[in-house]
């Protein structure tokens, strides 16, 4: 069953943060219990779960990441079959340690040096990737930033890299490496 939650009049960010945190805390507790039970009884672990958060810096900024459920998930929940899909337009607002824990990153154009450095935290071949990045920036022009959902099909450069990407570099719309 899929659940759609209507916020109605409660449209400000406070409601979103509060509800997201309450739900995620419950999910965390459930998954931890189920995984421990499965370990103890040699049963099947719970179904893998991906929690997606928008405006991730609100949940994962350095000030709060060490104390909140999202920081805990980012750091240690892989063992409980839960992972985070983090979406943000200002990655520099996300805690450095959390950024280094993110396995795969897909990024569109960024024109802020701090954001670029933040996305490349803990990545090997950082300088090479940065030069690929800058060439994408030059090719597409500043009017495509921040592009992801609105960019045209032809000029929609992005790069992907991380633990689960065998060939880091520019990618096309389907996410495959550009030839």
């Amino acid at each position, binding site marked *: *069953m*899929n*659940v*759609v*939650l*209507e*916020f*109605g*009049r*409660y449209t*400000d*960010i*406070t*409601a979103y*943060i*509060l*509800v997201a*945190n*309450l739900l995620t*805390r419950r999910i965390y507790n459930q998954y931890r219990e189920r995984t421990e039970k499965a370990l103890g009884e040699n049963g099947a672990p719970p179904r893998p779960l991906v929690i997606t958060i928008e405006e991730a810096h*609100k*949940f994962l900024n350095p*000030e*709060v990441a060490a*104390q*909140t*459920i999202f920081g805990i998930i980012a750091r240690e929940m892989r063992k409980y079959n839960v992972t985070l899909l983090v979406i943000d337009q200002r990655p520099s607002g996300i805690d450095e340690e959390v950024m280094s824990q993110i396995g795969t990153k897909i990024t569109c154009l960024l024109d802020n040096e701090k954001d670029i450095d933040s996305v490349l935290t803990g990545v090997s071949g950082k300088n090479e990737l940065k030069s690929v990045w800058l060439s994408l920036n030059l090719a597409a022009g500043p009017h495509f930033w921040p592009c992801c959902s609105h960019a045209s099909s032809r000029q929609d450069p992005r790069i992907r890299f991380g633990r689960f990407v065998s060939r880091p570099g520019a990618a096309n719309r389907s996410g495959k490496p550009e030839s």
Partner: protein
Amino acid sequence: MEGRNEKGHNVKALKQLFPDKVAVFTLDEESSRRRKVSTDYVVRLGYDEIEPEDVVLLRQTLNLTEAAVEATYQLARRFGDRKWIQTILNLEDSDASRELLEKMNIHEATYRNLRRDLKPSAACLSCPPPPPIIRLSAS
């Protein structure tokens, strides 16, 4: 309920496309009713669901001081995770309350900051008790 895409065309809602696979929950029953959205459940969030960790995340948006956030942990330890908000919102403006805050090393200004921002309508210390708890109930 149908929505509109960026080009202004009508787009069916997930519930219309997959009626058996989608449940609609609402935090605002009245708004859903006005928009003629048929909902399956109403969600009510009560004070007993809110933990100090939630307040940490909301510090910037609620404009709370660091001391106020620290105080939430002390209050939760003292009154319990499920009762701390309700307790501080119900504290009367009395010498006994001030003494209690003093014992917990919580400055009165910090307490007022916390109280004001957790319940904007509670500007005074003698407010009526808060509404009942978050419950998940079928609409």
